[in-house]
């Protein structure tokens, strides 16, 4: 099993529903976020290329945060989901320094927090909150090992990219372009 997410940059309008849904679902403290939206503009007027990306933890296959964690609080759970065990985390910040995507933040309670792919929902067979709430249905979540999962089907016919592949992290967020 290998959970992954495909984000359709052609469908995303940057409304921010996924961010609000995540903050509500996961009780993310005020001023912080586990997912966010990047508006990327390339070119010079009038030849501009606009891209919206809903970003979050990439749940990397070769996760530098897990490698750098001195206590083992950061670990890879079933399905490749990268998680932090709160009462094993000492808040040293090594994982924050090691993440090329700046996907982690220090929770005001001390431990380091990040996107969990809403594992508490996924375990019940539901989608992550951000996926369910997306009004343009541009987020696709599922198991890459299952050829009929929503994410596998989304990746099958489309061109995609991952962020900073040169970092060698083998990220599992796929951006459909």
């Amino acid at each position, binding site marked *: 099993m290998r959970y992954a997410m495909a984000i359709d940059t052609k469908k995303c309008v940057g409304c921010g529903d996924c961010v609000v849904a995540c903050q509500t679902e996961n009780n993310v403290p005020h001023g912080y976020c586990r997912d966010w939206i*990047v508006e990327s503009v390339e070119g010079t007027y009038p030849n501009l290329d606009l891209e919206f990306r809903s970003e979050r933890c990439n749940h990397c296959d070769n996760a530098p945060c897990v490698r750098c964690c001195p*206590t083992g609080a950061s670990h890879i759970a079933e399905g490749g989901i990268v998680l932090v065990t709160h009462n094993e985390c*000492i*808040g040293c*910040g*090594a994982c924050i320094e090691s993440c090329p995507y700046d996907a982690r933040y220090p929770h005001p309670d001390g431990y380091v927090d990040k996107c969990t792919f809403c594992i508490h929902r996924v375990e019940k067979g539901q989608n992550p909150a951000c996926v369910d709430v997306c009004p343009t249905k541009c987020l696709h979540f599922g198991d890459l090992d299952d050829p009929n999962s929503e994410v596998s089907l989304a990746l099958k016919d489309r061109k995609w990219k991952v962020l900073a592949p*040169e970092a060698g992290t083998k990220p599992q967020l796929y951006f459909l372009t």
Partner: protein
Amino acid sequence: MKEELFVSGRNIPNIDPYLNIWHWQIPLYLFLGGLAAGIIFFAGYFVVRGKEKEMPATVKWAPIIAPIILVIGLIALFWDLKHKLYFWQLYTTIRFTSPMSWGAWTLMAITPFSIIWVASYMKEMVPGWNWKYKILIGYDILLNKYRKSFAWVMMILAIILGVYTGILLSAFNARPLWNTSILGPLFLVSGFSTGLATTMWVSKDEKERKILSRIDLVFIAVELFLIVHLFMGFMAGTAVKTEAFQLFLGGPFTVSFWVFVVLLGLIFPATLETLELWGYHVPKWIPPVLILFGGLMFRFVMVEAGQITRFLY
């Protein structure tokens, strides 16, 4: 042209717009760790060489500083933790892929060992000193019997500690400025140089200071050589590396690095030490103070600048 914006209002403290998760505690600790490693290494080295009598300050007096600064460094590290009450989780596991983990274990060993080292010389340093308990007298005799083996252990631990202060940073491939394997030897050499400087400052014996000064000059030369290599690596590197290098070449860290670290912290004290060896009178505190200042600045600059550098996408 490319412009990227957070449109969902992301502005996380200490992460946006650029990373600043590690503050003054980390560079201070890296400095004190390297300094202690330097002091301990040369204390061990001169014991192994059988020069305890000729080098009293290096072997006996300067090592008193080591446990004190190690404890200050540990307090700084603890201060920096954000989930402080769980710090003991560090000592429930050893994770070899995490430099911080084996560094924590090295500190766990070298801090008490450095106290034992000082204690084993108490009889020689304080006339009339006597251990109150029989068991301590026994340990004292045992240590003096196996002094050289103990010195070897201390030397090896000191090298691990010195290298670790650099590898701690170089393990993060997300920060291009840090992600170079030369940082390990560079921090080791820099730490040893600051250790030698401190020992020189402590020493009252002209001959001993000259020996230390000669060794220190070699270390400063090696350090300069490694700094040149560090930047050669960046210049020949990928876009993220050349971008990182710009911070030191016209960017906000240009003056603090080239003037404070390289010129005032390395070249100037090296010149003064050379003049002293040639027979000119130089106040004995000036070169060590400059070297210590340079070492501290180097770590502050590397930690601050490294956090700004990142992958571009």
